[in-house]
């Protein structure tokens, strides 16, 4: 059987266009054909997790059964009582498969875990979000079918954007008017074409044409060179356009299906400080971390009056958030340093914002300071991506081998 990874080649897009056509027509007549939607979702999942990737397919099925059982168990428990430790335990059990998948390569020298599959971390984010909302009493009923639709929504299964259960289910059950759907359809198609430009032209130029050359030269020079600086920018551009392109495909496809999956990027390089950058970069992930880790941790510390200083609480929150984000990317020194770097950057940013607030009269604020702020933020971010790229690691090994 053939295997096809999401959004990789023209055939995949042709298949999307063809199979979504009945959904488009139905929506234009203000109808939903749930059975058909489920059928093609299954088809696309089979395409990505079948064939030579069948072992990933098995892993996915076992994982989903395990997690849904856990969610249901917690939901039933929460209807009766609300012990904090049971909640922590449930979250921990929910992330055990992800932890195993992340830790295995670090222990067994790059060996991939057999329980892993493409997109496991994105599904885990959705599940943990659900468990936390069940705890808060925000999710009031458990529907098996809709939970499966939410977790396995094929346009976003491989790399997000990370949607929220209540938002998704709302869209899934809601029938849009023809006018509203047409708006959505138009946007969806536009996003997919913008995605083509991003991923198959701009990212191709930076990542496939430019990057190998620049990398080779940077390695040949060794140490800090202009080639390394060039690598930093080329890598950053490739990272953005590749991922933003992918995200546009995922969001565009969702829109065509009548689901308003949240956007992932909002002109991140126009941010005037690091804090703003994280409100514009990989938004569905950073908002997830903000809402489910940072805010909950801060809430917990403040409510229980564990720490007095609000500045200390905020900084502790940042460190926790970005360290977890670092580990989530993978257990290597450069992902963890990347996390720490951003935690420090945002702590400095907060300190500066406080200073600015106090000395509003003395600090100039005009077009030039704004342009400088954007320039500084852009370069700080690109430097963090150089750490993230692992290229410094490659350079070190290259040096040792010589």
């Amino acid at each position: 059987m053939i295997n096809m990874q999401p959004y990789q080649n023209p055939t995949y897009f042709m298949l999307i266009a063809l199979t979504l056509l009945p959904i488009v027509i139905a929506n234009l007549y203000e109808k939903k054909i749930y059975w058909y939607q489920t059928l093609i979702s299954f088809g696309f999942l089979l395409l990505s997790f079948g064939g030579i990737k069948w072992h990933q397919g098995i892993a996915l099925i076992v994982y989903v059964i395990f997690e849904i059982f856990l969610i249901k168990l917690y939901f039933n428990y929460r209807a009766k009582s609300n012990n904090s430790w049971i909640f922590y335990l449930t979250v921990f059990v929910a992330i055990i498969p992800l932890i195993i998948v992340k830790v295995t390569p670090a222990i067994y020298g790059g060996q991939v875990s057999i329980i892993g599959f493409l997109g496991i971390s994105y599904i885990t984010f959705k599940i943990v979000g659900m468990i936390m909302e069940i705890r808060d009493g925000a999710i009031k009923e458990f529907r098996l079918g809709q939970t499966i639709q939410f977790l396995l929504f094929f346009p976003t299964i491989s790399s997000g954007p990370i949607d929220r259960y209540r938002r998704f289910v709302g869209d899934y059950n809601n029938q849009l008017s023809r006018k509203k759907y047409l708006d959505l359809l138009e946007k969806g198609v536009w996003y997919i074409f913008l995605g083509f430009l991003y991923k198959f032209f701009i990212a191709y130029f930076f990542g496939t044409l430019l990057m190998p050359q620049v990398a080779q030269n940077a390695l040949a020079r060794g140490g800090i060179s202009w080639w390394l600086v060039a690598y930093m920018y080329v890598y950053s551009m490739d990272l953005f356009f590749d991922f933003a392109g992918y995200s546009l495909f995922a969001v565009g496809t969702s829109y065509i299906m009548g689901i308003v999956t949240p956007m992932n990027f909002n002109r991140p390089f126009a941010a005037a400080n690091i804090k703003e950058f994280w409100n514009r970069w990989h938004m569905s992930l950073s908002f997830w971390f903000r809402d489910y880790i940072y805010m909950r941790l801060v809430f917990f510390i403040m409510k229980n009056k564990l720490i007095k200083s609000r500045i200390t609480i905020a900084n502790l929150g940042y460190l926790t958030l970005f360290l977890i984000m670092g580990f989530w990317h993978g257990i290597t020194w450069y992902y963890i340093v990347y996390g720490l770097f951003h935690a420090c950057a945002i702590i400095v940013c907060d300190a500066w914002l406080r200073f600015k607030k106090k000395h509003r009269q003395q600090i100039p604020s005009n077009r030039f300071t704004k342009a400088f702020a954007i320039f500084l933020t852009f370069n700080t971010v690109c430097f963090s991506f150089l750490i993230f790229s692992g290229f410094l690691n490659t350079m070190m090994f290259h040096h040792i081998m010589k």
Partner: protein
Amino acid sequence: MKEKIIEILQDLTGSEEVATNLDLNLFDTGLIDSMATVQLLLELQAQCGVDVPVSEFERSEWETPNKIIAKVESLKA
């Protein structure tokens, strides 16, 4: 209730504008961030007796003083 909420917002943001412009976007202007949001939720709990869990906090529904007042009043009712 309205005065109380505006007072909380003034304390939290250190800005007088929140009392004069009730349609001011608190997030876009940077007057409130995630940290201040949590403080706001705790203050609302302590002073107004409304319990808002973090996952019920949808930014777009809480972004101006007016929206916050409306939200608290609806939760009180």
